[in-house]
């Protein structure tokens, strides 16, 4: 019964979305306030209906209602509760329902917090947002309905893909979707502005928090996914240039470009049409990402729902929204002349460089990702584009970005002198070169690229510190420290996020350049040396019973050279009998400067076990850096909200002032 109510609520939400897509838009065109105002309750209703529908599906998963096709295919009574819940979005239908839930949530937020928006703009934003929702409601109801019942329910389900039964992956999709879908707000604002034919500083200020929030969520989502791949897939990689990973990286890069160009619109009223274009493209790449994942057109680890029919539907949605928005852009972009004037050396120019590198690198990832498809369709060449291409084609852009970032971040607006900024950055430069040379000297024989990467990462981190410190002005140390804490949160957010980029880069370079690997047949009880550590396979326990799996568990001691034990690791090989699938659980000793990463392999005829040990320097810095980037985003966001609220009070005060006139 609850399931049917959920289904019904979803259909109602679809109806509301169609209503909200048309009426406020017409109202805004005709200047009819009542028609425009209807968008607000509609947005809230749409969200509540979708939330109810989602709750109904969650209820079905939690109670293991196997009369529902989706629950049967993706759940099992033995599964731990966390994974029963995460099973709701661990499949195609449920994940799309989560998609629209977040989409309607953002729409509702725009309505709740958008009191200071001009009424026509608000009505148009909500209408555009609702049109996206309508397309996805139709997609769910017509091709991917999660509420399909089974005529003869089975006694138990078929279990969720065991790879997905992991805390890291349980929360990876929701964050990623918050990011993907958050960019729909930037899209709606961009299209609404094109319809209005007006982009000003206020528009930039409204768009930025949404983009920033979306970017923060994407950062967390990508970080979680990468962390999961690191410890779960069992060979210690963190990024595979898989089409689905690229699908999340492209919107992230474009969103990073967008949130920087929106600053230029807000502060200097320049780069307007470019920012609009970025806002459209950012959501476009989110849709492309959804298309890549959901159609399975590019075979990948993640495409657990291959279905060409669904792919065509998403392609149509993509074609409609991108085609429509870009057409509108082509007609209207010319009307948005820039106001701000700036000299060649200025913060504005620095941000143009940022946008250039981020946008071009996005397109490089895009071309590499779809190239196999193009080559097959046009030239009938079946080929692969793998990590070697992306490493060669993408890395230079990141290096370039790293070189330019600390300088660009410190340039003043309008007109700047390069000399003064470079002088301030000399300590950072010296530190970076010194550490780079140190890496080169210590690890002789490795490529020259790694020390350069290390130096650039240090340059980024130190540059961020210099940037923040330089904002405290002149005077004695105590006074500067005092001012440091009183700096606006946006300044802190900027430096923290930029330092986060450096930290992640440091981890990536160190891990790819300097890891050690050891593969051997280990005899239980015979210690051996890997790098500075002594490794001993103590024993292997077979048939260890887990809640819904059977495990072969190794016990591995990691000791210092002098014999003091620093960790006892338990690498596992699990078999999930219901899904009939084996997985591996690496044993990892996490450290600030290195991870010891151990996986257990097959038993050998000679009596030992195959054991693989990696020493991964600074591995945790990769994800630590992403968390710090996200933290920087939050800091900046909290500052914005403060200003937002201030703006709202001012607007209200102004309105209150009107009757008194």
């Amino acid at each position, binding site marked *: 019964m609850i399931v049917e109510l959920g289904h019904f609520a979803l259909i109602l939400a679809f109806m509301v979305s169609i209503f909200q897509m048309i009426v406020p838009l017409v109202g805004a065109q005709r200047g009819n306030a009542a028609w425009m105002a209807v968008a607000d309750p509609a947005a809230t209703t749409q969200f509540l209906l979708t939330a109810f529908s989602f709750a109904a599906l969650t209820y079905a998963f939690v109670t293991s209602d196997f009369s529902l096709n989706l629950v049967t295919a993706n759940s099992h009574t033995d599964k731990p509760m966390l994974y029963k819940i995460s099973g709701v979005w661990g499949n195609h239908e449920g994940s799309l329902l989560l998609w629209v839930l977040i989409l309607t949530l953002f729409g509702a937020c725009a309505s709740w917090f958008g009191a200071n928006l001009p009424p026509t703009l608000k009505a148009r934003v909500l209408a555009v947002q609702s049109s996206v929702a309508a397309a996805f409601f139709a997609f769910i109801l017509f091709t991917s309905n999660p509420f399909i019942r089974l005529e003869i329910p089975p006694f138990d389900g078929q279990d969720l893909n065991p790879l997905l039964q992991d805390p890291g992956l349980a929360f990876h999709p929701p964050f990623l979707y918050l990011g993907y879908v958050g960019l729909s707000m930037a899209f709606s604002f961009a299209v609404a502005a094109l319809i209005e034919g007006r982009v000003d500083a206020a528009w930039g200020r409204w768009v930025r928090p949404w983009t920033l929030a979306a970017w923060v969520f994407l950062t967390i989502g990508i970080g979680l996914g990468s962390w999961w791949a690191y410890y779960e897939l069992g060979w210690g990689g963190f990024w595979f240039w898989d089409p689905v990973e690229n699908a999340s990286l492209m919107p992230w890069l474009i969103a990073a470009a967008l949130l920087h160009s929106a600053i230029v619109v807000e502060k200097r009223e320049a780069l307007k049409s470019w920012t609009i274009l970025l806002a459209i493209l950012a959501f476009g790449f989110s849709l492309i990402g959804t298309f890549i994942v959901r159609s399975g057109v590019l075979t990948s680890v993640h495409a657990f729902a291959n279905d060409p029919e669904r792919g065509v539907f998403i392609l149509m949605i993509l074609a409609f929204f991108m085609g429509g928005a870009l057409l509108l852009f082509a007609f209207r972009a010319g009307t948005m002349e820039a106001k701000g*004037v700036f000299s060649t050396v200025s913060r504005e120019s620095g941000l143009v460089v940022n946008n250039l590198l981020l946008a071009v690198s996005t*397109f490089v990832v895009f071309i590499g990702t779809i190239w196999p498809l193009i080559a097959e369709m046009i030239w009938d060449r*079946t080929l692969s*584009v*793998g990590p*070697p291409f992306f490493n*060669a084609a993408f890395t230079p852009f990141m290096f370039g970005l790293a070189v330019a970032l600390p300088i660009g971040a410190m340039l003043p607006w309008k007109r700047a002198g390069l000399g003064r900024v470079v002088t301030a950055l000399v300590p950072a430069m010296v530190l970076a070169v010194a550490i780079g040379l140190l890496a080169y000297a210590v690890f002789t024989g490795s490529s020259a690229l790694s020390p350069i990467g290390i130096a650039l990462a240090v340059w980024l981190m130190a540059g961020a510190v210099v940037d923040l410190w330089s904002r405290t002005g002149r005077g004695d140390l105590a006074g500067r420290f005092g001012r440091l804490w009183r700096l606006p949160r946006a300044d802190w957010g900027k430096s923290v996020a930029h330092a986060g980029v450096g930290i992640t880069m440091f981890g990536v370079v160190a891990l790819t350049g300097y890891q050690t690997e050891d593969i051997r047949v280990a005899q239980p009880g015979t210690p051996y040396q890997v790098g500075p550590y002594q490794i001993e396979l103590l024993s292997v326990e077979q048939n260890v019973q887990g809640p819904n799996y059977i495990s072969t568990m190794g016990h591995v001691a990691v000791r210092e050279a002098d014999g003091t034990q620093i960790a006892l690791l338990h690498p596992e090989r699990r078999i999930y009998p219901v899904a009939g*699938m084996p997985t591996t659980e*690496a044993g990892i000793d996490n450290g600030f400067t290195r991870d010891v990463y151990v996986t257990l392999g097959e038993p050998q005829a000679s009596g030992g076990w*195959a054991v693989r040990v990696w020493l991964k320097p600074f591995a945790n810095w990769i994800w630590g850096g992403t968390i710090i980037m996200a933290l920087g985003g939050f800091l900046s966001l909290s500052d914005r909200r403060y200003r937002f609220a201030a703006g709202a009070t001012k607007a209200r005060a102004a309105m209150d002032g009107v009757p008194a006139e």
Partner: protein
Amino acid sequence: MRALLLGVMLALASPALAVQPDEVLPDPVMEERARDISAGLRCLVCRNESIDESNATLARDLRLLVRERLVAGDSDAEVVSFIVDRYGEYVLLRPTLTGSNIVLWLAPAVLLLLGGGLSLVYVRRRAQSAAPTEAALSVEEEARLKDLLRE
């Protein structure tokens, strides 16, 4: 379809230990070359994995083949072309710089030059455009300004 999917998943998710201890060549330099070559070859039955990372039987066969050729005295390029002759271009994770792929390899540089050129033109124009545009207000804004001043 389901069986195929399961098969792919099995191949993909088998407990890791891609390179088995018995595969490792005694000569560390040659083993290093074998690892480098393997990292650039795609496992044909997996999804987007190199044979170096994969645990599939076919990947193991290919790894052994690579090492066999190396021991027989082939150069790295000869080993790769030996494999490509048998399995096709699809096994190469690094697309060759031939035919239509030239477009792919040139794209980053061309895009950067194009984008860089456009950016430069934009920045130059901003730098040169006269200051008065900044002061120009629309009729509407002018009216509002007048209102505000009157208040």
